[in-house]
């Protein structure tokens, strides 16, 4: 949408003048935030359900209760880490949006000052950020899928158990070996997202330096023309 004010065109579309990554950041920060909150809400709900089952389980053993208790524990941890990953992705996108605001605003100031608009190409830190963020999200999602697989195995292990020691050992072993690596994998995914955020902050600092330099150039030009 474009609004015309006096003799200057004001582009009110939030994504105009931005590169594809910044456009994506402007559009995706809110969906990521909402998805993250919903997934964390689900993790909490699963935890509450687990707690309600666990209260009875320690009084009298019931195979179905034990299966649900163990399954919900693994699922709840998986959902919690996935929610955390989505929220970190939302922070990443919000930072990309911020970099876009700097790019667009800097260009508008140069234009208003009657100078040729000079924009710098995407810094290597921005490319590193994109790679790390995508890898981080993929790793978190892969870890989450592994947690779901482990949860299914745990359920199978306990559902026909006749007592607290009656779990199917092969299923239980498979679940435990999966959760042994899937939890650190998800944490590694979160670490990749955090590292991506650090690179995005470095990109913003780089952009700010470029803008300060450009402003200095413009001021020098203005002084010499007086």
């Amino acid at each position, binding site marked *: 949408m474009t609004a015309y004010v006096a003799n200057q065109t004001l582009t009110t579309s939030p994504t105009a003048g931005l590169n594809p990554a910044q456009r994506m950041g402007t559009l995706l920060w809110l969906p990521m935030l909402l998805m993250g909150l919903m997934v964390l809400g689900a*993790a*909490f709900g699963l935890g509450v359900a687990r707690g309600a089952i666990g209260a009875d389980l*320690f009084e009298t053993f019931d195979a179905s209760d034990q299966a649900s208790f163990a399954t919900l524990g693994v699922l709840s941890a998986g*959902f919690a880490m996935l929610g*955390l990953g989505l929220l970190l992705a939302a922070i990443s996108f919000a930072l990309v949006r911020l970099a876009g*605001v700097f790019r667009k*605003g800097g260009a508008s100031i140069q234009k*208003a000052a009657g100078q040729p608009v000079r924009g710098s190409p995407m810094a290597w830190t921005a490319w590193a950020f994109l790679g790390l963020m995508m890898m981080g999200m993929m790793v978190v999602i892969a870890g989450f899928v592994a947690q779901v697989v482990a949860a299914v195995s745990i359920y199978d292990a306990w559902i026909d158990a006749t007592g607290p020691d009656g779990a199917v050992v092969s299923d239980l072993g498979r679940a435990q070996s999966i959760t042994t690596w899937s939890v650190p994998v998800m944490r590694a995914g979160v670490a990749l997202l955090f590292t991506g955020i650090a690179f995005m902050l470095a990109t913003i600092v780089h952009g700010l330096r470029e803008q300060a330099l450009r402003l200095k150039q413009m001021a020098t030009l203005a002084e010499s023309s007086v």
Partner: protein
Amino acid sequence: MSSVTTFDTRYGFKINVGPEATGQTPLHKMANIMWLPMLGMGFMVLAGALIAGIVQANLASDAFPGGSATDRATVETMKALLPGVIFVGVAFLLAGISFLLASVLGAMRGSGGALQQELASEVYTPRMPASAWAFMALMMAGLMVALISLGFHIYAAVQIYDYYSTGVPPAADSLHLLGRAETVLSYAAPLSMVGIGLLLSGIVLALYTIGNVLRFQFDRVQEIILGRTDIVLSKRN
């Protein structure tokens, strides 16, 4: 007496137009002061958790096998307590980051106002947007949830201590204590994550607010350079 008029804008907040810059709000001043203590507290809590973890490891090597009931109880109690303490430490660190972002907003408000007062006849001051209020609410809710979760961890730790201190092996008739602890920990672990999630959501909203204020400031500077008054207030009320 100077007159201040309020206008709606396309940046997600209203602005006050007046002859003088108003400076930072009390919330910004609080953020300027609070970010460092929060970071310091977070660091101290996490360092404390690290030391407690080392103590726990030493106790564990004595407690197994054949250790006293008290040693075993202490190890199991710390095992239940430490995750809650770590989450509170992380929550304090995230609160520190949040206060720092609020401080950035305050600096933008203060310096933006001063610049306008120097270069223009009217000073446009943003009123606190809904996203900033939501940011503050999320941050406080996140901290409270993390502390409530720590309360759950402490309660569970007490139950676990009572259970394991009944003897080696622990008395069978006190198994309900372990059940109670497991139940409470089932609530506490995801609750901690919810607390962290609320704090992270607050940070997202703070970044969104900073983006909107920046857009406003770039447009205002553009107005000052061009000597116009119709870019920021393109939607006058």
